[in-house]
């Protein structure tokens, strides 16, 4: 089971790297989901190592929050695409335009 701890750390770091490196907003959101997956795995592992069921409830709340985050993020991308015809972060320099 201990290999999963390293896996969750790896997933978090890989998601962070992708969020920094990627240039389009959709790929950045995908990498954020990867980070969420890593943290969720860590909470389930805590539930197994402490024997408490509370950590599993935290994972349920985390799924709710990640669903909200993705929905609002994607609708923001659609609104931005309608206005600017782009999804690249380089092209969106002034936010108040």
């Amino acid at each position, binding site marked *: *089971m*201990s*290999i*999963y*701890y*390293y*896996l969750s*750390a*790896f*997933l978090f*770091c*890989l*998601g*962070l*790297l*992708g969020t*920094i*490196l*990627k*240039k*389009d907003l*959709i*790929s950045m*959101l*995908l*990498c954020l*989901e*990867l980070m969420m*997956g890593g943290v*969720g*795995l860590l909470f*389930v*592992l805590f*539930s*197994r*190592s402490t*024997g408490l*069921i*509370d950590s*599993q409830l935290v994972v*349920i*709340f985390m*799924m*709710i*929050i*990640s*669903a*909200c985050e*993705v*929905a*609002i993020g*994607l*609708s923001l*991308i*659609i*609104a931005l*695409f309608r206005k600017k015809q782009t*999804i*690249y972060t*380089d092209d969106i320099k002034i936010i108040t335009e």
Partner: protein
Amino acid sequence: MAADILLTILTVVFALMVVFSKRTVVAAFSLLMTLLVIGMIYFQLGTVFLSAVQVLVNAGAIAILFVFVMMLIDVEQFTNNRERNKWKLIASTITVLILLGVFAIVINNNIESLSAVNLSDNSMKTLFAKLFDVYYLPFELATMLLLAAIVACVVLATHDKHQSEEELIEAHNVEEKQ
């Protein structure tokens, strides 16, 4: 132990494909597979309900939502040959590797205390008894958050009808002048 290693390798491969694939659609489907394999890991760890919710909500709904949005804005029209900043790549890779090293050291030092114990009562009944007894306030707040997210999505993604009508009238006026 063999299943542990197999699931870990699968997750690592799909996660690498999310970050390093050139096409965004491939990345989205790799994310779907990653979340699916994480659901399998939940199942193997004995948290069956979370495994089902992970497959239904995260893999089934969220990853498919990404693909829908890609179809809406036709993501393939953007060629992915933007110039990459070499120093940014090197600096962020080194930073993330250091972070991963710190995580690995922390896990390595505490690995004895992190071994699995038997969950005293792992049934769904206990889970939901606790959810509606101890955590009822966060649960209600979560429902409010979902409601706010629905309203925000509708407001943000709805096409501004008046604005497009004004643009049409303007374009019509320009044509008439010509």
